Structures are given as C-alpha cells and as structure tokens.
C-alpha cells in the first residue's frame, strides 16, 4: 500500500498536466450527469412536494375532466365506501406586485374539516379565516422573505383584479414536504371561491382511504358516483402523468448528460493509456523483479479507482453548482412551457449521489480495463524494450469499422421500418450515430492521414504519423467527433427551432399592442381583464380594432389541453393561425359560422386528429364533439391547444372574463407611446402591456431560457473534448519520446518538432470536427424530424445557422490548436539525450 501511495504521489508530481486533465475529464463527466439528475429529480420533487403539502397523504385525487369540478360532487365522493376523509381544494396563482412579480399559489381548503395542517403559528381564532376578509396563512419562508408579520395586509392581482389579503397565520408546508413551494398560500375555501370569483367550483378533491381499503375498487366507486365529470387517480398516477408530461424535457437532458459522460469516459481511457505509456519501463522493471501480472493489474486498477474517486469528489460539488446555476432556467421552462410548479430548492438524494459515483468510478474503470489488461499481459521484455504500445485498434480497425457501419445501417433500416413509429425510436437512432462515430474513427483517420503526401518534416509529417498510433489517436478523434456531433446536432436543432419560431411569430404576432395580466401566465383562464379595463382599451382614439381572447383548460379527445376562444371574424385575423392543414379563410369561416374548431399541431399529432374529424370537448355541461376545420402550427405548448370562435366558446363554457386582448392601431399611431400611456392610465391592475416588438422579444427570451441548460451541457462536452486533444498529444509526445530524441539527434530543430506536433493536433481537430459535423448533420435531422415530432409534436423547418456553426468550428479548431500547444512545446524540448541504446 505504501508503495502504491508513494508511487502514485511521485507520478502525480511528475505529470501534473496529465493528472489535472484526467481528473477534470472525470469530474466534468460526473458533474454533467449529476447536475441533470438533480434538476430532473428536483423538478418532479417540486411537483410532488406541492401535491403532498396540499393533499396531505392523499391516496386518491379526483380532478375535473372539464374546466372545473362542480362542488356538488363532493358529498357524493365523501360517502363512498373506503373513503376515510376527503377535502375539496380550489387553487389559482396570483401575482404579488414587485419589480419581478412573484407568483403565489392560493390554495383554498376547508379549514374546518378534519385534516392535519402544519401550523407554525396557528390562528388565534379559526373563525377569523371566515370573518376577516382576505385572511390567508403563508409559509414562514415567504413571510420572512417579504418581511410580513401576522396581521399584515398585502395586495396581489388576479387578472386585472386587485385582491387584498391579510396574513392570519403561518403554515409550514415544508415540514410536511421539504420540496413544497414556499409560495403556497392557504385560505378557507369560502374565501377562496369569493376572491377568485368562482362560487360553486372546485379544482380537485383529495381523498384519504381507510386502512386496508382497496384503492382501485374505491376509485371505481367514486368514478361511478361522479360520472364523467371527473377522473380519479392515485398519487403514483399523477406522478406518472407529470413524468410523462416532462418526459421529453427530462429525456432530452438525460441523453445530453449521458453523452457528456460518454465523452468523459473517452478522456479517462486516454489518460489511463497515457499513464501506462509513461510507465511502460517501470512496469517492465517491476515484472522483471518478480511482480506478478495480477499485482501489476491491481496497481493499475487501484490507481484508476483513486482517480475515479477524486473525479467524483470534485464532480459532485461541480454538478451541484451547475444544477444550482441552472435552476432558474429549468424552473422557468417548467412553469412557462408546462404550467407546472417552479423549482425552488434542489433535491440531492443518496441515490443520485450513488449514481454519480458509480458513473464516475465505473466509467473510469471501464475506460481503463482494456489497457490495464493488455499492460499486465505483456511480458517484461516487451515492456522494457520500449516498443510502442499499440492497442487493439491498430490491428482490428477494419472489423471495428465494419461493426460501426453495420450498427448504423441496421438501426437506420429498423428506424425506417417499424422504429419510427415507436416514440423513443429517434433516440435509438441518435445513439447509434453517436456510437458509430468512434467505431469508424480508426479507419477514417488511418486512411485519411495515411494518404497524406509528406514533403517536409513539418505539419503534414505530424498529421501522417497519426495513422501509426491509431489506438491512441483514434480515441481522441472519436471523443472530439462525438462532442462535435452533439454540438452540431443541437446547434442545428436549436437554430431550426428558433428560425421556425421567428417565422411563426412574424406571421401570428401581428397586432400592435398586447394586453394581458401578470397572473395570466400562470392562472390562464382565471386571470381575467375587468370590463372597465377593456372599455378603456377599446375606446382609445389610436385603436382601430381589438382582438379578445378567452382561455380555459379542459379535456379534448382524452387529453387536457388549452382551449381558446377568439373572434374568428376579425378582419385580417387569418394571420393569427398559420395552418399546416386546411385553407385559412375557409377554416376560419367554418369556425365562425358552423362552430368548427382549429387544432394545434402537438394535439393533432399526439391524438392523430385530422381536418374533418370530430374532436370531443368536455364542457361544464357535458361533452360536445366539434369538427376540425384546420390544424395550425403551435409552438406555445407541449400539450397542444384548440381554438374556436369566441361566441362558440361562451356557449360551451358559459360567460366569463376576457383573458387577453390584442390591439390593432390606426395607421401612423405609435405603439410604444400607447403602451406607456396605457400603463399610466391603468395602474395597479397587474397588467402586462407590451408592444409587438416587446412581445416578440419576450417569446424569444423564453425560448432562450428553455435551452439554457442544453447550452451548458454543450459547453461541458466541448471542454471535455478539448481536454481529450491535449491529453492525446501529451501521450503521443511521451510515447514517441525516443523517436523525437532520434529526430533531434539527426538534426531536427525544435521549431520543426513543434510544427510536427501542431500538425498532429490540427489533423486530430480536422478529423474530429469533420466526422463530428457529418454525424451532427445526421443527428440534427433525427432531432428535427424524429425526436421533436414524436415528443413535442412540433414541426420545425430545418435551418442551418451557418454563422453559429462556422463560429463553433473556428472555436473548436482554435481550442484544438491551443490544446496542442503545450504538448508541442513539451515535445520540441525533448533532448537528444533521451535516446537510449535500445532505441538504436
């Protein structure tokens, strides 16, 4: 052990750069996987935490299939055999005024029903929950953050309505569920229905079962009692739904993080190899002094384990920091795109840490296994004579290449056949592309560099010499290629997405000024604009016409989606919908005249709906099937949406407030000025008044926020790939030390050797970037046409962001050059005295 540790420390001292690079590689690989895992779990945890905090330890939840549950169904649920207790819940998000609005989730409960509420500071008189207007209980965290004390009042807005609330008690939901939102605000259901202007409506009923009651049978009885109004789910089913909803998002991140680890494992492999090459003679000596093969093997494995352990120890805080830095953007994506809970705190479970440790140490071991075995098998003479280490890749390049081609060809054929109908099929094909790259790398690199014409002892000589150590060089090229492939694939996908979104915004966002409320982004249909505000807007001199929109959420064809009602007869209003199926004028005319509907692409794709089909839509009064007259591009939600004429909407869902309006101005009027004037004229109503440009900017900033994590992972992969190039060249410098000494002895100058090594670096970069770009283009096609459609239901127009791609290529090439500089300098400094007798 002492020998092992002493030797290890000495080796770290003698090759600090190598050690740091290797450690960085493992740590980055671990960090990227860990950060994504933490974010993934925290996102689900936030959802579950708030479910648990509000629902207690509910065994079943009854949720509406229409926009809400009529409260009359509550007694029917309560009486069913197997039910031990049940609580009605009504909820809505309101905006707390401030620089950046904070959204509070109002949760109306029957505070007099028997249930456990984790009071921190209970109300002095429970009856105040009914008698004090706006009485609410807030979490201690929120009270502390806002500086509130019991008895203090504050204002929030719901739509354009201002609600006055008063802190009546403190309730510590985080005691029940640590990940529960601190923004939960509890009030009595009677106050909630009044404040939200929703008498008679509830959003869910939480049910606790008797001990030993059969959940499935009780759920059946409840279904029979409430009829088609509601669905009854277990917490597991609700979690699964959230998981399914977030599935695409989570899978996307997980896949990216695994690719980072994949690249990281290459790095570990390269570094282990490098370490072994350096110590070839040392192992030879050990063997000739009587060390057994097993002992050598154990020393190598022990070192790799230690390296993996250190990498994990460094990667865990790094991963946590990365997760912390990205919490905001993930949280924004969840609430903007999925209308789910925001993530307020991170959940790091022992299982997540164990996974990180397993991936880090396991990855390192896996990377080192083959070279360790090979090294321990070589006899001591071979090791001592300094013949170069030529791992398997050199001799088995062709079979490996064939395996790569077969893998990619086979999976591509499968995908073209049945595979594309299976949702994760696109991912399988994508992974096949990424796996094929390293498999074909040795042959591509070998035949590519081997054919180079060498006219002088310079760059080309360096590049050509790569083919002589394919075992090492092809690994570096493969690592770079995988990272570049991912980078290019994602860059093209994001570019296509952004371009599509820009085109879509360009044709649909046509009005001059858009008015909604701060709470609309969370409460949607519940956040209404009051008639006085609408009147003020409509009667402005500058305003030519006003487009009104109402929204609700209900079950359409078995999926809960957004339904909007707009004036389909608005002159020039066809531009609001870019149709992918159906003729715009005709579709809107049918919507206006015969109550037809337009369906958003994600819903159409997921439900298989086509123009002419009749889509069943649940209303508070039953179910009605409407004919689809058009299918429109819709990048606003993952679940999809349905649009109908406002008059039809009111017939189906009853009277209700308008949620947002768009103002079309008379020619020559200044929209920015109107926005300023309206903001002054309509103060304290929590209104969001944006000009056309501001709204477009806002949509694009939401888009950028959504892809922030993806970009972080891209950056991590790139750093890993750059580390890989440096490491590979260092290995080459080490492996070729006697050769370099010979060159020096034969008269090669330092600049010549420097150029040779820079040539090697350039060749590695060119091949890595070239192969990666080719793979990346294929990956981009798969992402745009396969994965996005399957998971999000969005059609994206393929767009190559040329500038971004060229910039990335330049950056990568520069990074590779920079990464080559240090090894090149080191190589050029090799003295002729390194030449041993054996080398001659």
């Amino acid at each position: 052990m002492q020998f092992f540790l002493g030797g290890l420390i000495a080796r770290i001292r003698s090759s600090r750069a190598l050690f740091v690079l290797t450690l960085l590689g493992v740590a980055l690989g671990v960090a990227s996987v860990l950060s994504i895992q933490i974010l993934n779990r925290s996102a689900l945890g936030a959802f579950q935490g708030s479910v648990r905090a509000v629902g207690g330890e509910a065994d079943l939840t009854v949720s509406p299939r229409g926009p809400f549950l009529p409260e009359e169904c509550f007694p029917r649920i309560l009486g069913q055999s197997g039910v031990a207790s049940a609580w009605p819940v009504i909820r809505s998000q309101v905006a707390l005024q401030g620089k950046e609005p904070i959204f509070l989730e109002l949760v109306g409960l029957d505070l007099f029903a028997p249930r456990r509420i984790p009071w921190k500071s209970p109300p002095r008189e429970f009856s105040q929950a009914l008698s004090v207007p706006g009485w609410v209980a807030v979490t201690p965290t929120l009270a502390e953050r806002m500086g509130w004390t019991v008895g203090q009042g504050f204002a929030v807005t719901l739509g354009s309505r201002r609600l006055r609330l008063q802190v009546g008690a403190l309730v510590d939901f985080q005691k029940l569920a640590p990940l529960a939102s601190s923004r939960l605000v509890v009030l009595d259901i009677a106050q909630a229905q009044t404040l939200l202007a929703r008498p008679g409506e509830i959003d869910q009923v939480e049910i606790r079962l008797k001990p030993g009651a059969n959940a499935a049978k009780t759920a059946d009885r409840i279904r029979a009692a409430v009829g088609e109004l509601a669905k009854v789910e277990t917490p597991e089913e609700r979690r699964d739904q959230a998981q399914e909803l977030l599935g695409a998002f989570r899978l996307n991140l997980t896949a990216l993080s695994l690719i980072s680890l994949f690249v990281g494992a290459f790095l570990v492999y390269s570094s282990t190899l490098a370490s072994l090459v350096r110590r070839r003679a040392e192992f030879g000596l050990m063997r000739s002094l009587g060390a057994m093969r097993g002992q050598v093997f154990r020393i190598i494995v022990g070192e790799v384990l230690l390296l993996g352990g250190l990498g994990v120890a460094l990667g865990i805080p790094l991963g946590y920091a990365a997760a912390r830095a990205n919490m905001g953007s993930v949280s924004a994506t969840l609430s903007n795109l999925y209308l789910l809970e925001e993530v307020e705190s991170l959940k790091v479970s022992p299982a997540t840490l164990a996974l990180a440790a397993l991936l880090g140490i396991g990855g390192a071991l896996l990377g080192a296994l083959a070279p360790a075995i090979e090294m321990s098998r070589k006899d001591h003479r071979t090791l001592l004579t300094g013949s170069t280490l030529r791992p398997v890749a050199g001799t088995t390049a062709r079979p490996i290449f064939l395996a790569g081609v077969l893998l990619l060809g086979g999976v591509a054929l499968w995908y073209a056949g049945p595979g594309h109908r299976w949702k994760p099929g696109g991912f399988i094909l994508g992974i096949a592309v990424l796996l094929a790259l390293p498999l074909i790398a040795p042959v591509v690199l070998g035949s590519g560099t081997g054919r180079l014409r060498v006219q002088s002892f310079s760059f080309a000589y360096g590049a050509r010499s790569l083919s002589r150590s394919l075992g090492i060089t092809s690994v570096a090229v493969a690592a770079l290629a995988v990272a570049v492939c991912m980078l290019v694939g994602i860059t093209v996908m994001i570019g296509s997405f952004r371009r599509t979104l820009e085109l879509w915004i360009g044709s649909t966002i046509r009005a001059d000024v858009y008015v909604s409320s701060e709470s609309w982004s969370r409460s949607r249909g519940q956040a209404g604009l009051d008639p006085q505000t609408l009147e003020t807007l409509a009667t402005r001199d500058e305003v030519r016409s006003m487009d009104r929109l109402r929204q609700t959420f209900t079950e359409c064809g078995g999926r809960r989606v957004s339904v909007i009602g707009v004036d389909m007869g608005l002159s020039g209003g066809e531009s609001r919908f870019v149709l992918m199926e159906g003729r715009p004028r005709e579709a809107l005319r049918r919507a206006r005249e015969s109550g037809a509907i337009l369906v958003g692409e994600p819903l159409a794709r997921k439900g298989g709906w086509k123009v002419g089909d009749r889509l069943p839509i649940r209303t508070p009064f039953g179910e009605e099937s409407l004919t689809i007259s058009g299918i429109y591009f819709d990048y606003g939600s993952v679940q999809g949406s349905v649009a109908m004429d406002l008059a039809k909407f009111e017939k189906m869902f009853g009277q209700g407030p308008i949620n947002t309006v768009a103002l079309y101005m008379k020619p020559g009027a200044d929209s920015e000025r109107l926005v300023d004037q309206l903001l002054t004229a309509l103060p304290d109503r929590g209104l969001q008044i944006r000009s056309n440009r501001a709204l477009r900017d806002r949509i694009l900033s939401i888009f950028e926020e959504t892809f922030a994590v993806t970009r972080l992972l891209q950056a991590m992969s790139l750093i890993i790939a750059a580390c890989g190039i440096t490491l590979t060249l260092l290995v080459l410098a080490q492996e070729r030390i006697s050769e370099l000494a010979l060159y020096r002895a034969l008269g090669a100058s330092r600049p010549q050797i420097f150029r040779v090594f820079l040539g090697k670096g350039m060749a590695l970069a060119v091949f890595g970037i070239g192969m990666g770009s080719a793979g990346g283009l294929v990956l981009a096609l798969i992402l745009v046409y396969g994965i996005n459609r399957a998971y999000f239901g969005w059609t994206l127009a393929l767009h190559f962001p040329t500038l971004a791609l060229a910039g990335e290529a330049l950056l990568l090439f520069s990074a590779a050059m920079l990464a080559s500089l240090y090894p090149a300098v080191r190589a050029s400094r090799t003295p002729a005295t390194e030449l041993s007798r054996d080398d001659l």
Partner: protein
Amino acid sequence: MTISRKLLRALLAGIVSLLCAVAWRAVKPGYAWAFPRDHWAHPEFRTEWWYFTGILQDVANPEQRFGYQFTLFRVGLLPEKPNLNSRWATRHLLMGHAAVGDFGTGRHHFSDLLYREIPMLSGFGTYPEARIAWSLAPAGTVGSWELMWNGEAFDFRMRDDERGMAGDLSTHPQKPLVFQGPGGISRKGAEDEVASFYYSFTRLATLGTLALGGRTMSVRGVSWMDHEFSTSQLQKDQVGWDWFAMRLIDGRDLMLYVLRHSSGGADFRRGTLVSAAGEARFLTAGEWSIRSTSTWESPHTGCRYPSGWALEVPAEDLELEIEPILQDQENVCRRSANLHYWEGAVRLLSKGRTPAGEGYVELTGYGKNNRPPL
C-alpha cells in the same frame, strides 16, 4: 404611552367587548320558553347540544344490553354569516358523536363527525319542520345522521359503516320535560353569564334498531335527553366538568354536575332531583357531596379519569355508590383534534351493594390541553 393613547385603547377594548356581547346572546333570566319551538336550534347562542344517553336491551335476547350515546353539537363560529360569495360560507359547525358500549363483550364503539353547516354537508332545521339537525354520515358511509321531532319526543338515527355501527331509535316521554335550574338557567360558575339554558327529558321510552358488527337487533330501553344552549359555559379558570344523570329504581332521577377548577378541585356544583311524578327540586352545593373512589388510566390517551364515586344527598336519604359498567368508555374523537372525554354507562348501588338504578356519567377536561373550547 400617552394618556390619549391609553384612552383610545380602553375605548377600543370597550367597543370590541360591546360588539362581542352584542354578537352572541348571553344567558340571562327572563327567557320566554316556547315548546316545541325551543327543541330546535338557537343560533343566537354560541354553543348548543342535543344529548341522548340510555341503556338498551336486545328485544330477542334481553340479557344482551348496551349503553348508548347520541349527541349533535352546534358549534358557533361567527354570530353572523360572513358576507362571502360561496356556499361554503358558514357560521356554524355541526359535530356529531355516537357511542355504544356492549356490556356483553365489554367493547366500547365510538363514531364522530364534524362538518361545516352548509346545505351540502349539514344543517339545523327551523320549527315547525320535523328535522332539528342533520348531517352527512362520516366519510365512507352513505346516508345521514338525523334528529327529528316526532310530535311528542325525538327520533334519531346514525350510521358509520367503517365502525360497523348504526342506530335508528324513536322515543316517547315517560316523564315530562324538566328545567335544570330556575327558569331553565343552569349556572356554571360565580359569574352570572357563565350559564346555559338547559332542560331534560329524564325518562324517554326508546324503541328501534341497533346494528353492531354486522348484526342488526331490535332494541328497547330508556333514554335521558338533555338540550342545552349557551354562549359561555366555562369560566376562564375552569377546565372541565363531571356530569351525572341517574335514574333510580324508585322512580326518582338525579342530575348533578361539578365544574372543576384548574387547580384540580371543584369550583361550582349544582344538581336537580326529579321526583317519580316528574317534579324538579334544584339542589344547591351544600345539599350533596360526591367523592371519587377510584381512577382509571386510558390506554388510548394516557389520561387518568376518576372511575367510581360515593354520593350522598342527606336530605333525600340517598347514599349511592356509582360504578362504571365498563371501565373503557372513553370517546376519542378522530375528527376534532385533541378532543377526548369519558362518557359511559354506570350502575348505582345503595348500601349493601343492592342495585339502586343506572345512569350515565360524563367526564371532560381531563388530561393535558383538553379543556373544552366553550
């Protein structure tokens, strides 16, 4: 603090207390009783209950005997209905307790419910509709708990499928209604307004069905009914009460109560003796004495209750031993946090331990933080 501020505070306190006093009606002499109207709810008072206790026997197997309790409480939250646009807006809660002690098996069964008074969950009727109070049955049970006026007394029913309990009983009076204090006012302490309006039917012939553990029986027996409403039942320094309702074999009935002081001793005592003919005589504290002879510790709550008493009413030549028929007759509420009390059937023994009658005893406010919120 400046004088004006003090004055302002005093003024505010005065206004608040005035508002409170106006809000809930206090128990004061001169109440104009009107029956049967007064059998229904009195929402101007904060608290009200209809209490039935009795001993029943299986008609088919008279050896099989049961003690029972059925109580509906009106718990006032606010003197006036809050001005809210919601059907959940309420000013009352309805709490229901039902217990059956099976003397044969020695088991005590208890069911409780708590709902806000809103049309879909529970309510209190108004004279002359037959229904006095009702609520949905506890969660998991279809049906309702109801208390009805049948023209001469009360019908009531309850059901709790989870506990395997159900009862449907009809009563008619064997003795007329009696007031439990002068003018129907039952004082609970030295302060005048700490009192309730309180009357009883001490003997109600009872017939009906009782279901327990899946077996439904026709039962008959005798019940005692109390109807009490008030705004303030306990003084600040009182923690609970011991209440005794006893039917003697000689036809007399005796109701006694002891309000206990937080220091542990008796704070205020009164009683009523009802003759065989139904005439009430109110007993002052000096006319009777009672002492506990034993205690029982609850395995459910850890609470120690008195369990067995020696009673003397010298002027009536009464010396009785009071013994619980079952030790464990503790009601532990599942739906009202921290509420548990002992309410059970007792046997009365005279000198030489000869049977002298039966009755019910209620012990509240025992244990930590268990003062009834009255």
